[in-house]
């Protein structure tokens, strides 16, 4: 959507009509934050230096915070009285709509940093544009999240440069990680019917727009990190449509355990 001509707020009829699609769209954003926050929080107490325990925990905390706001909103749109925790903990595997990239195991610090740069650049492009969404709630969430994301991207980019342009060993490790993770970025920008629908309604930004911004940042940081941009390769995962890798199941089993073991309990 254009910042110069923000579309008028939606009327009640069209809002009801778009609710199922909006619900799914918000889940995509919320589940990205939820699953990546979960993965990052696994690092706490195990990072290469005490300062990095704090740095990664900081990003994890911000992402869980974004997940709470987005999933609470999703519950409201759904209109069945489900709150942020019901949505976060009680859906089944195929109902999670995060991109597959964020559910992959952390790997070593280098792989985690590569993944983080790819996603931070994506979230920055997303939130910068989402801040002028016709959906006021999403716009407000995005406005807050954009500041956090700028810091995340600064942190992850700095680390990618240190590792890419560090020792021969660190360079080799992150180049390998980049090759391994690159194919998972395809789904981030491949628009499907839901993406197009949301863009037409002025709710979501155009993925093409975002792809341009993302490419510019990624090329810049890869160059500074002396890393080669991998070639494009054919790809099969589409977590954003609920088609996940084997890894999500384990992550959910761990995350959902207490809620499933004590149905209806309050914590």
């Amino acid at each position, binding site marked *: 959507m254009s910042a110069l001509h923000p579309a008028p707020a939606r009327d009640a009829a069209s809002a009801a009509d778009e609710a199922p699609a909006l619900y799914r769209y918000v889940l995509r954003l919320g589940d990205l934050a*939820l699953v990546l926050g*979960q993965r990052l*929080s*696994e690092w*706490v*107490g*195990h*990072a*290469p*230096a*005490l*300062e*990095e*325990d*704090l740095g990664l*925990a*900081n990003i*994890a*905390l911000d992402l*869980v*915070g974004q*997940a*709470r706001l987005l*999933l609470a909103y999703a519950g409201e749109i759904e209109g069945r009285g489900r709150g*942020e*925790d019901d949505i*976060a*903990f009680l859906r089944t595997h195929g109902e999670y709509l995060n991109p597959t990239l964020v559910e992959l195991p952390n790997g*070593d*610090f*280098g792989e985690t940093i590569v993944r983080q740069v790819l996603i931070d650049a994506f979230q920055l492009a997303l939130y910068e544009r989402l801040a002028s969404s016709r959906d006021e709630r999403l716009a407000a969430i995005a406005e807050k999240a954009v500041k956090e994301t700028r810091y995340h991207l600064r942190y992850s980019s700095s680390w990618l*440069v*240190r*590792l890419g*342009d*560090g*020792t021969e*060993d*660190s360079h080799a*490790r992150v180049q390998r990680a980049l090759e391994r993770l690159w194919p998972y970025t395809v789904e981030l920008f491949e628009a499907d019917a839901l993406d197009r629908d949301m863009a037409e309604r002025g709710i979501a930004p155009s993925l093409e727009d975002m792809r341009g911004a993302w490419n510019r940042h990624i090329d810049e940081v890869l160059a500074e990190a002396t890393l080669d941009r991998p070639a494009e390769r054919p790809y099969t995962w589409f977590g954003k449509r609920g088609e996940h890798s084997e890894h999500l199941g384990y992550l959910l089993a*761990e*995350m959902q*355990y*207490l*809620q499933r073991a*004590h149905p209806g*309990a*309050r*914590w």
Partner: protein
Amino acid sequence: MYTQALDVHGDSGEPVDESERERRFQARVDREEKVEPKDWMPARYRATLIRQISQHAHSEIVGMLPEGNWITRAPSLLRKSILIAKVQDEGGHGAYLYSAAETLGVSRDQLIEQLLCGKAKYSSIFNYPTPTWADVGAIGWLVDGAAIMNQIPLCRCSYGPYARAMVRICREESFHQRQGFDIMMKLCAGTAEQKAMAQGALDRWWWPALMMFGPPDSASTHSSDSQRWKIKRFSNDELRQKFVDFTVPQAKFLGLTVPDPELKWNETLQRHEFGAIDWNEFERVLKGNGPCNRERLEARRRAQSQGRWVREAAMAHADKQRRRAASCAA
């Protein structure tokens, strides 16, 4: 200033003999003046502080593990957030304390090496497992509660950097105890299974928490110097008694039973009497034979060794940047 470039063995003042220096030093401490990094201090004062501050720092770092273990399984997003923030704080506290220890002329890497090879001690409480979510609540309520009791007097300790680190830590610590108690309250007001989970955690953590205050006064070797130098301001038994008196009513409020059949209120002395502590267990755990000692240290060793390539890469990059800047300037 807290510089590593301190000349900690020399002194450029007029020649004065050692016992006169010690007398003047003690007089300053008695006047409640703070000792700062570049000041002259007795070698034993320096050694005692390095030992105490580093043990405290190690405890914070190791302490991230028993609770960190539950972050991915926290039962709500709010609890997950709170737990990440708490464990992050603990890492931060470790960092402040290593910084304070470094002002005494040791390096953080040296101290960490001592921890990882098993030479340095840390609070034995973190060698106990956290098998249930209720253990996370019990740690916040009891372990952080006991820690606060130890830490508040340290805010007035004679060594400036340690006192200042403690002020910062105590400010952050009070949320830790409250969130633990809050977890326990929700459990005790919940389902029968939740309440049983809470009671089980209290059963497991009560005695280890009492042991956190250290051996009885009669048996403690380091105490009298530490008290004279205002590094330690209250005795182990005094603090332990205070902890029991504060905590027993809290357990009652929760509707939980303290696992001590000899616990009773003494109306004359206005305090609780409690049963004998098993000091053999304390010694066993302190010596490395507690349930999780090996696992905790292994986890820290793994993090350290697996992270080595990262730390070296960061240094290599910084070196390259410096060389580039130098050759641009040339």
